[in-house]
């Protein structure tokens, strides 16, 4: 069996051969299965963006390999090109992604490159725009004349319109307002359910990752420091904090309640989960 994405000894240096040479990722070995929703977290500069830029061949490894569906993407030109359609990547700063004259053309860029029919392109653009909350009146506008969060939505729509088998988002919710953030989380969950796509999300929001991810990968100083389920990773709060990360506010609340002697579980990562537990506890309390 092959994995959707597999990295073997993946290593990348920037400014190679100069005094400033940095190993941005060092000997990274990962296996991502079809249909998984993987969250990648890690401190600023830990190598997350560098790592995912290898998954669709945007960066070339200095050593090691990236396999997509079992095939080395750098095998030949044809394989590299195919992997670019298969794996859609949405950049950390939407400005890097936007370049067309209008919002419509920007979202249509991918499907056009895929040589789809005009009708199919239009349908995909409208669907992706509606999905991501791009306003109809913005479609004719220049993407550069939008607010930060509006640009972000267009950039996400531009990747979704390609309907790739693997969707990779680098900080997709950064700059989105809270409603947009929640909508995006639901959108990604629904999209995955409907299409069975593999989704990889880089995020600094421990809350968002807790709500979405099947598996969490923690990057620290260019290497993978931990991986596992939300529970497995988030239960190691002290180690996470030592790496510049933390746990969701709700998890902290439960830790402090326990410290005060309340009999509540440790592994609470969403408000919904926490509220359900406390409701029971408070009912019991008032019944006494």
């Amino acid at each position: 069996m092959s994995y959707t994405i597999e990295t073997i000894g993946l290593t990348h240096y920037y400014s190679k051969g100069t005094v400033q040479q940095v190993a941005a990722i060092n000997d990274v070995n990962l296996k991502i299965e079809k249909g998984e929703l993987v969250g990648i977290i890690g401190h600023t500069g830990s190598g997350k963006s560098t790592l995912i830029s290898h998954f669709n061949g945007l960066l070339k490894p200095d050593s090691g390999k990236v396999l997509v569906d079992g095939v080395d993407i750098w095998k030949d030109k044809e394989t590299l090109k195919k992997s670019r359609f298969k794996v859609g990547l949405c950049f950390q700063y939407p400005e890097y992604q936007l370049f067309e004259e209008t919002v419509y053309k920007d979202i249509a860029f991918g499907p056009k490159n895929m040589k789809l029919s005009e009708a199919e392109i239009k349908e995909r653009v409208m669907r992706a725009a509606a999905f991501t909350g791009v306003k109809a009146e913005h479609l004719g506008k220049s993407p550069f004349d939008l607010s930060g969060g509006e640009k972000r939505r267009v950039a996400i729509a531009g990747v979704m319109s390609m309907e790739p088998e693997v969707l990779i988002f680098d900080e997709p919710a950064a700059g989105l307002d809270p409603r947009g953030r929640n909508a995006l989380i639901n959108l990604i969950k629904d999209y995955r359910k409907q299409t069975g796509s593999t989704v990889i999300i880089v995020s600094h929001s421990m809350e968002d990752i807790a709500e979405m991810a099947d598996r969490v990968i923690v990057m620290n100083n260019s290497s993978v420091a931990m991986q596992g389920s939300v529970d497995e990773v988030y239960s190691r709060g002290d180690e996470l904090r030592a790496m510049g990360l933390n746990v969701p506010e709700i998890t902290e609340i439960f830790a402090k309640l326990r410290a005060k002697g309340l009999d509540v579980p440790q592994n609470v990562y969403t408000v919904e989960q926490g509220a359900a537990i406390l409701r029971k506890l408070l009912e019991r309390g008032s019944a006494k």
Partner: protein
Amino acid sequence: MSEKIIEFENVTFAYETEEEDAPVQFPALTDVSLTINKGEFVAVLGHNGSGKSTLAKLCNAILEPTKGKVTVKGIVPDTEEKADEVRRIVGMVFQNPDNQIVATIVEDDVAFGPENLGIEPAQIRKRVDDALKSVNMYEFRHREPHKLSGGQKQRVAIAGVIAMQTECIVLDEPTAMLDPKGREEVMQTVKRLNKEMGITVVLVTHFMDEAVQADRVVVVDGGRIVMNGKPREIFSNVEKLRSFGLDVPQSTELCHVLGIKEGVLDVDECVDEIARLAGGAL
């Protein structure tokens, strides 16, 4: 009475763009009146496209009102000279740090603002080093700002405004790309500048847990100011905030959904309230 530092009087702003040869107006702010007092820490919240960045750019004369008046310490920036004067009073961190990078070396980039203010070189050196240290970027001082990670660029941009030591700083989503620890450190730095040095702070953010730490919260919706008050007042109204596309911190939400208390602002308040009520369950 407190001294005003920035005053918006009935300010309307519309962007004008050419679309298929005909100019089109996009109204971004409508009839906004707002006073920021000297020494205050004000957070600005609002949905995407509500007009926050537009408001921020009007504070330091990057944009000029279409209608109405913005006054900074008595100065109306209607000439280039006066606009420069305003920029010496109000420093700004843009939403996208790439728009802020002006030099090819990190420390030169941070020195750019103070140099423009005419500060003497020895003083600049110290300010740049201190600013870079305060955002944990000192060891990156010889690097190229373009070749940094997203969060590292954001820290450099913040150092740039800290080094200017202007009386007022406006930060447009400065922590959007930072890791949890970095976000906390930037909030500590901002609060230190505010409390210890008396620097007025205007912070645009989508993080509710940051807004909670301000003296006052202003909510913008569709180009108008719709709420303006102390964090506790603002965050007591969960449903109203949601109707504006916003949210509340998890501590606030938990107490709200449990129906035990409104306007709880942080983890400790939340824990105390629950522990008190659960006393019977111990």
